[in-house]
């Protein structure tokens, strides 16, 4: 099962390595990990996408809670939430492909944020399946480079992760 775990953690040197070290030491998966300070700069918010059985994910949240720097842990995927991922993708855009790339970007509600005579950089935001679908829809030979941020997510409505 796919789980999105959100962590509020003290924004201190080495905090990230405590979390990533825990995952590697105990053999848990990290599919993606994003981290940045919150509006309160003393706290960082981390989102980890992991895959594991319910037992494993229960252990993951318990072990994360045990880390002294961790303030709060929530398994976002337990209830209603929204998730997004940002991708930037550099494609070859020459001749007839140039127009095609523009059309595909529009269809997926992406934006072209850098243009040269031969390339575009397309910015696309959505859940991971949408980004996957966009990549699948393009001619693979034209993709020069992709970079994705990994999933971040937030609970819907009154589900609030805050100190």
């Amino acid at each position, binding site marked *: 099962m796919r789980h999105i775990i959100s962590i509020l953690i003290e924004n201190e040197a080495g905090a990230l390595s405590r979390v990533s*070290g825990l995952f590697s030491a105990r053999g848990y998966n990290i599919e993606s990990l994003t981290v940045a300070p919150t509006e309160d700069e003393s706290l960082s918010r981390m989102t980890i996408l992991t895959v594991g059985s319910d037992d494993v994910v229960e252990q993951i949240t318990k072990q994360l809670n045990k880390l002294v720097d961790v303030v709060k842990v929530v398994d976002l995927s337990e209830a209603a939430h929204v998730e997004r991922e940002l991708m930037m993708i550099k494609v070859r855009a020459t001749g007839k492909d140039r127009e095609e790339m523009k059309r595909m970007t529009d269809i997926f509600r992406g934006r072209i944020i850098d243009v040269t005579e031969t390339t575009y950089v397309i910015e696309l935001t959505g859940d991971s399946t949408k980004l996957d679908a966009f990549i699948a829809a393009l001619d693979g030979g034209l993709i020069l480079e992709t970079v994705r941020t990994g999933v971040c997510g937030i609970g819907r409505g009154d589900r609030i992760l805050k100190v």
Partner: protein
Amino acid sequence: MMISGAEIVIKCLQEEKVDCVFGYPGGSVLHIYDALFKQDLIKHVLVRHEQAAVHAADAYSRSSQRVGVALVTSGPGVTNTVTGIATAYMDSIPMVVLCGQVPTSYIGQDAFQECDTVGITRPCVKHNFLVKDVKDLALTIKKAFHIAATGRPGPVVVDIPKDVTAQMCEFEYPKTIQMRSYNPVVKGHLGQIKKAVQVLQEAKRPIIYAGGGVILSDAAEQLTRLAKKLDFPVTNTLMGLGAYPATDRQFVGMLGMHGTFEANNAMHYADVILAVGARFDDRVIGNPEHFGSEQRRIIHIDVDPSSISKRVKVDVPIVGNVADVLDEMLKLLDTGCKTDPEVADWWKQIDTWRGRNSLAYRQSNHIMPQYVVEKLYEVTAGEAFITSDVGQHQMFAAQYYKFDKPRRWINSGGLGTMGVGLPYGMGVLMANPGAPVACITGEGSIQMCIQEMSTCKQYELPVKIINLNNGMLGMVRQWQEMFYSKRYSQSYVSSLPDFVKLAEAYGHVGMRIEKPEDVVPALQKAFTEHKNDLVFMDFIIDPGANVFPMVAAGKGLTEMILAEEL
């Protein structure tokens, strides 16, 4: 008044009522050692290897209720402590390790005696800190002691760059501490406790399974009262020995890989298990797939939620400090305690298992190691602190020395670190001056920290070393005999030193005991005539002695190999 960072370190230790630090000086901690020199409240024990400093601080903690402290220099000083820190971490021992570090401006420059202390120790500490500003020093040390001793205890490392120890700062030691990210649970959930008490009273085949958490939480007294009130059998893990008096009728012995026939069977066939400060690890229950029956119910009390339902699914989890939870349970039981009459039949069954006498061992013309431990128990009237190393001798000590009190049995249960025995003896004696202390060891383990005989001379620490010498790495040999068709690959130790002469060379008393009839007189002499001496007793034992019962790795608890079955 402004004082230096080094003086702040010492003042913090004094504020924490630390009376003894185990350590080894070096470049990065010279300022701290200078501050140490200028005071006399804290005693320093100069070890011969940093590993021993951490082991000694660990045993200081295990044998008292105080936090052990070690002080080492940067680089190799720190890397030498890693085994000791990991040992303490696996057994949840509260400890603070203060490490020197190269000056902040040198960090990351591959400076002389630099290492990434926080990175290297991170996986084996409860928490660690790098102090980059002298203004943070006192608060960080306060946090270190707080974190080490509360919740599930553990070692905390504080890495202090040399320039920080030189900088001047006002000193104020915080009285209390609040950390938004660290609030361990103390009280158990009352609803869960009520449920547990209910389940206990319904039990027909109950067992109380108590581990090191009872000792760490100083709850032996509560556990004993609870067991007495219910009249349930009690088994202890290796780490829990002493949590329940071993000489009591209700005690069925240690369980696990080398547990007694009655303890392992009772654990397996129980319908209600009350697990207290124990974690169902592989050496205790063997293969979880083979463990017990579907219908059974498990109550698990532990301060660490991640220990609950980790290897075995638990029906009534109670997160909280063991002592507090047991207090609550006792309160409830005091208002009326009715156990199931079928428990009487269960006791009959247990007594049948007991009749199997699974700790009986074969007789020999040589000294049997079990016999030495039995006689040690008699000569010391069960009152000694026993430290051990790791291997067959450790299991013999656990099986044949009957611990009636907590904190008397000091061994590395989780990590299984050879070499801890002698430095553990030092730590015990620093925390309990004048107490009888025996280190049960083997000729393999003792040589891993043997240099500490020198420290024992300097500080007059009269550890009695019980060396069960079979010229073999006994436990390795036992496994090779049983599972590798007697191919004794590298388990024979040749060119052993003359331990008697070695002890004498360090300024101690050495004895070599080769005949069974000499065992008791030698032990008596060591504990009376040589009460104040370190005595190295080299017992030449039967090289074929094995530890039984035994549950082979991957097997279930009832699949025991018993002594006579070979």
